[in-house]
């Protein structure tokens, strides 16, 4: 039987570092992906994910289970990501114009030896287009879509993280998906054969 996240965190509070490692293993990949989709840079996403875990560890003594653990975790991650985006925006003029774009960052994907090169290129183009479309959403809409689509959080939890009402969140999500519908129209009209790991159908 696996302990709940809250119980694990209470164990961490009591001094059990093994429970912290369980939480780390469970949430490092979702957190890095969430942060990568927010900041669009793998190195920054990793740094921020480390900072999230570090803050969780530092706050262990004061932890009280007033909300779901994931709400707390992703709220920290969201705040850090938004701060990072704002800081980068301030320093944007310092970046040389020929600096490599975030989209060119190397990705750690398992290579599919069977796939033909042109298919892989097409797939990569599609992935980049999706990432750009999500990345171009206003920050709050982006957080809402990432938590709704990829973390599959319920509305109440996302609303808590974004500090808004559920009704406002539904409007936010509708506007976000409406923007994505327009931006991804070229992809949507010509779907490719689907990969494994598809999530809940909509």
């Amino acid at each position, binding site marked *: 039987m696996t302990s709940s996240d809250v119980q694990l965190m209470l164990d961490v509070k009591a001094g059990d570092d093994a429970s912290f490692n369980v939480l780390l293993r469970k949430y490092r990949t979702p957190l890095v992906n969430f942060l990568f989709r927010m900041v669009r840079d793998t190195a920054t996403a990793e740094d921020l994910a480390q900072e999230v875990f570090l803050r969780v*560890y530092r706050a262990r003594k004061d932890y009280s289970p007033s909300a779901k653990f994931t709400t707390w975790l992703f709220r920290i991650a969201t705040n850090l990501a938004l701060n990072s985006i704002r800081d980068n925006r301030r320093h944007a003029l310092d970046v040389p114009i020929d600096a490599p774009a975030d989209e060119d960052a190397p990705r750690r994907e398992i290579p599919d030896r069977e796939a033909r090169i042109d298919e892989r290129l097409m797939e990569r183009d599609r992935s980049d287009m999706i990432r750009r479309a999500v990345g171009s959403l206003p920050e709050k809409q982006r957080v809402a879509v990432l938590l709704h689509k990829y973390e599959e959080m319920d509305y109440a939890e996302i609303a808590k993280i974004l500090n808004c009402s559920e009704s406002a969140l539904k409007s936010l999500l509708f506007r976000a998906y409406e923007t994505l519908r327009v931006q991804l129209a070229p992809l*949507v009209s010509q779907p490719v054969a689907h990969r494994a790991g598809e999530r809940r159908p909509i």
Partner: protein
Amino acid sequence: MKCEDVSKELIPYLDRRANSALRMEVEDHLATCPACHARAEEFRRVWTTLDEAPLVEPSLGFDARLRERIAAEPGPRWFHWLLPQPRLALSLALLLAMGLWVVKYSPSARQEDAAVVKPQDFDAVKDLGVIENLDVLSKFDALSELAPVASAQPPAQPDNSQPSQPNNGGGGDM
């Protein structure tokens, strides 16, 4: 349900988190509104397309780097208990301030102050018997019997024709 209402409930309908009553309402509308129906279909395809976004994995040194940072965190020191705890310090300061205020400005304290400032009030204690019997004393009529003699008899006019008699203190005929 109108198109504006559907737009708000379309996402919960599509991700199957809407309750059954709401789902039926949205379905009824989609069956009669081609524009909303088409939009719902496109949203479905967008949702499927978003699954194509690749996953990234944390680097192999992620955990080790985090453990290093945690190890570098300052741990509890032996003199930790001596360091002021802000919340505790604030609570104690407030408690002290309240205590001083109560001692200085409470009614009982003011009475005590008054007692100290006016020691002459203690004299009233000496006259306590008089004060308690004030009512009796004020109605005491013992002297009233002498009063008519003193007050009703006008002052004697010296009469040279008769020899003066010494006043024996007795009352005249009344």
